[in-house]
């Protein structure tokens, strides 16, 4: 199947994703279960990565600031901007695409090859909506909260790294974090907005590859890999488009 066929099939699938759920109560149960499974269970990994990412950003910024004309608080400022604009929303999304994307694709793919999806269809359940809508909505709505946590931990990581290495004081770092916030705060909304788009991309693409798996265990593995690759490439493309539209 070529790329355009995949894109067409993906959008046809989305038509069924947003159909009215068979039973509201069952949908909400699944919604919160998926929020727990996909987003909340990813927070420890996101937190760990964010602390070290923030630390490295501040150390690298400090090591590249050789000009005495630049004030020291610039380190905090650059750490904040890098974290909010790119590192937390994009890099964390790429990592989550690996973890969550492969998980979703293999879960749904296994259901496909073991005829569990056929069983749902025979019962009269809209299998696409039943399996995908809770995952997509839960991730799209809750993932920004995980990214806010990531941003906070990244900034804390930057502070710990810089202060313990005697590169700047706590006061200087905080001045940097607060610098130009009045004119830059829309960057936070831009970051959270694109995070929601990335969350949608990760889950819907993973669901697509899982749902249309054909064959056996080997094909489930391939679907999983394809889902991660496709989601990662799409995130980078969408990131470029959103940045071009919003920030330029």
């Amino acid at each position, binding site marked *: 199947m070529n790329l355009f066929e995949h894109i067409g099939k993906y959008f046809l699938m989305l038509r069924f994703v947003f159909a009215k759920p068979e039973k509201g109560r069952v949908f909400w149960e699944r919604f919160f279960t998926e929020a727990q499974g996909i987003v909340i269970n990813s927070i420890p990994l996101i937190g760990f990565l964010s602390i070290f990412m923030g630390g490295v950003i501040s150390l690298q910024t400090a090591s590249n600031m050789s000009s005495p004309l630049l004030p020291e608080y610039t380190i905090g400022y650059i750490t904040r901007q890098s974290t909010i604009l790119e590192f937390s929303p994009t890099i964390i999304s790429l990592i989550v695409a690996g973890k969550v994307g492969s998980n979703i694709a293999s879960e749904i793919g296994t259901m496909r090859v073991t005829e569990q999806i056929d*069983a749902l269809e025979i019962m009269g359940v809209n299998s696409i909506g039943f399996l995908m809508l809770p995952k997509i909505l839960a991730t799209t709505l809750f993932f920004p909260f995980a990214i806010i946590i990531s941003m906070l931990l990244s900034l804390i990581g930057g502070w710990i790294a810089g202060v313990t290495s005697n590169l700047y004081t706590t006061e200087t770092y905080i001045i940097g974090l607060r610098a130009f916030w009045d004119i830059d705060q829309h960057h936070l909304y831009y970051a959270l907005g694109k995070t929601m788009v990335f969350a949608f991309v990760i889950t819907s693409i993973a669901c697509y590859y899982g749902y249309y798996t054909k064959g056996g265990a080997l094909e489930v593995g391939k679907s999983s890999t394809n889902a991660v690759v496709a989601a990662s490439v799409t995130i980078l493309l969408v990131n470029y488009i959103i940045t071009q539209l919003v920030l330029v």
Partner: protein
Amino acid sequence: MIEVKNISKSFGDTQILFDISAKFEPGKVNLIIGGSGQGKSVLTKCIVGLHEIDEGEVVYDSRVFSKMGRVDRKVIRQEIGMLFQGSALFDSLTVIENVMFPLKMFTDMTKEERAERAKFCLERVGIIDKDDLLPAETSGGMQKRIAIARAIAMNPRYLFCDEPNSGLDPKTSILIDNLIKEITYEYNMTTIVITHDMNSVIEIGDHIVFINQGRNWWQGNNKDILSTDNQEVIDFVYASNFMKNLRSKLINN
């Protein structure tokens, strides 16, 4: 009653089913038999709507299923129970949750009522005190029985069984066959079973459709099949030396 009228199905350039017609009556165990790759599973998937047919009609009690849209089909699908070859139980749900699943999705029963009905269905298939196990923690035979319990939970009018004996030992196979037969008679269901198992053919085949080369090659019951002179059916039924010897003895007697 389920009726298929002149149905044909192709995948790309390969035609699998050719102008098949058959009637499957209620209160009877209807078997679809035939060699591997002859189109049995495709025929069944066409009947339940997992594959769209190219030509012909599938009719459920005067309702033309094959011409219905998704929403109308849903009504009929809730009257269908299906036992899949690999059982197709939901991995993440326990035994009782699997049986309660269709009730949860399509009825307004309370949790207690659902549990009561699920326990009744599980007891009916001989599964007791396994409610909280996951499907992976049960044997193949048990999984088939749990799948039957799930299939009958909604009191279906139509029951489909795709190779219910595959992967089971002879004793468990007989148990599953008897269960399908009992349930069919008890609830007056229209039951369609796809099978390769000759024991099932002889034991429970009230009506048998032999599919060969994608065509309805032969029809009859479990007595007719032993005395047919249709060469393809003879080759299929009496494939093993044991069965060949049995046939010789039958003819000599």
